[in-house]
């Protein structure tokens, strides 16, 4: 069944879009990250213009993150102070990111930048995760009684100025670090149309040294507002948010997320992280292949301007 997407200006199969949203939701439920990193490239593969895919995906992230924030908040897993500090950087980063996006779109390089950023981000994260889960797995197999490694190391975090106490995270660190982290995630969020959870969550654990219990909830808090900011700015400056597309993705995601959560409960964490690493690397490889492959046509159309 086809539906016409008024902003993407083309018709698309409803079930393809629902399935795409469902897959993103499944990942969100399974791994606790948004799944946008998979949904946005897939939307572009099926022919949605990248600008519309990114902006509409940001809209979907709003729904996705409020859905999981609901649960995390009730369980008290949100470090509000940390969330707000992250958000400060996130708002600046995402606003700058939308501006950068608009500029890149105008000079005709947005597709390339989206693809390259995805390849770099996903392959780095994927390799790190794969290494981490494989080494954990092997270590546990060799010596199941071995204690877990230190959760975080103390170096840079403790030397920067503007130290703040984060009670819930049991941290006393410089505010500059979460602000900077939020800033980077904000830019990524604006350009890639993702929440950025797949970068934010590991960074909060390994760089900030936050306890894992509050990481998901706090990242969801920051992602919700950053994604809302990106949606608003994209709609206001580029007019590229397709609510019909976003709604279909959201509906798919709403169904997919609990299924993912139930699957996740049945699999051990190390297997889960290994699976995710493989998935992330697969998407990165496909995107890299697209960049390297000789295109079927070297020509494409840029913007169309109706002159007065």
């Amino acid at each position, binding site marked *: 069944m*086809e539906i*016409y997407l008024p*902003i993407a200006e083309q*018709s698309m199969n409803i079930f393809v879009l629902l399935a795409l949203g469902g897959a993103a939701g499944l990942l969100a439920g399974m791994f606790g990250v948004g799944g946008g990193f998979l949904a946005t490239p897939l939307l572009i593969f099926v022919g949605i213009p990248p600008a519309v895919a990114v902006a509409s995906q940001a809209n979907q992230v*709003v729904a996705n993150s409020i*859905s999981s924030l609901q649960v995390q908040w009730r369980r008290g897993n949100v470090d509000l102070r940390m969330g707000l500090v992250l958000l400060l950087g996130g708002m600046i980063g995402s606003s700058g990111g939308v501006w950068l996006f608009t500029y890149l779109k105008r000079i005709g390089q947005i597709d390339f930048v989206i693809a390259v950023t995805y390849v770099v981000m996903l392959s780095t994260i994927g390799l790190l995760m794969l290494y981490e889960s494989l080494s954990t797995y092997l270590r546990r197999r060799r010596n199941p009684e071995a204690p877990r490694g230190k959760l975080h190391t103390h170096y840079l975090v403790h030397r920067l100025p503007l130290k703040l106490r984060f009670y819930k995270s049991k941290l006393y660190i410089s505010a500059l670090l979460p602000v900077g982290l939020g800033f980077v995630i904000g830019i990524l969020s604006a350009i890639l149309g993702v929440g950025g959870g797949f970068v934010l969550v590991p960074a909060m654990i390994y760089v900030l040294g936050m306890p894992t219990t509050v990481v998901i909830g706090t990242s969801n808090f920051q992602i919700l507002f950053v994604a809302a900011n990106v949606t608003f700015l994209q709609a206001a400056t580029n007019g590229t948010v397709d*609510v019909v597309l976003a709604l279909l993705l959201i509906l798919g995601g709403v169904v997919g997320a609990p299924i993912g959560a139930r699957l996740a409960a049945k699999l051990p964490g190390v297997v889960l992280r290994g699976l995710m690493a493989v998935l992330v690397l697969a998407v990165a490889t496909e995107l890299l292949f697209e960049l390297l492959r000789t295109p079927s046509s*070297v020509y494409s*159309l840029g913007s169309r301007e109706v002159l007065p």
Partner: protein
Amino acid sequence: MRRGLVLVAAILAFAMPSAQAQGPRVEPPPGAVPAPTIGGPAGSGVPPSVPPSIPGVPATPDLVVDLSQARVSITSAFQGENILLFGMFDPPGEVVVVVQGPAARDTVLRKERFLGLWLNTGRQAFDDVPAYYAIAASQPLQRMLARGTGGEILSLEDRMASVRSVGSRDHDDLIRFRLGLVEVKRREGLYPAAIGQVTVQAGRLFRVDLPFPSRLPEGVYEVRAYLLRDGKIVAAVSRPLPVGKVGFSAQLAGWASHEGELYGLAAILMAVLVGWFGGAVMRRI
């Protein structure tokens, strides 16, 4: 079924010449050559367009055309559409139909391999590029055009040769960009590659299917039909064909482009509500 209806409509139009008189006639501008009559059954709901000013075309009601639809409506279910143009002409003669979308500036991007990666390195803008261009004829077009129609009827190649490039670029490269432009438009179905076939029945009724893809720029398209005798245009009829979003799609698109801020807030609100309640409902199940 559809074909039958069309035939009936065309025959009705033919059998009742008075029907044409009921429609409002467009007065030609002062000093202009009297315009050919705008055809079509009365009460089709479409006001006749201002006829094209074609020098040397005599005022003859030799050619009557109508469209199976007054407009192309882009609804939520739109998947592209075929519109039937049908009509009647006074034999002998040949019929050529040209459909043109609104002209605008289009920018063509060209990818090149850079450090092993393909990225857009070249860009060239063209002015006066039709959003859509289709041409159909009742006999091989080249033969008709070769006899000269005063440059009024242009094949796609000729039409594209007339688009103006913006800025300067070396001649050969410009030609490559222009070919690239046609290639992309063809791929999107906006320049149907083949010259369409105008089918003639009973020596005087004709019909042609005009294909419109799902990714269709909006605007007022122009459908022109010409009657040629011995390579000369003896009659021409023009009909506007508005292409636009209607209903829900139109509302959303209009809102998105005119009130982006409000649209953005509404999009966020929608996501928050669906995410909140959808999540809550699904967790219960």
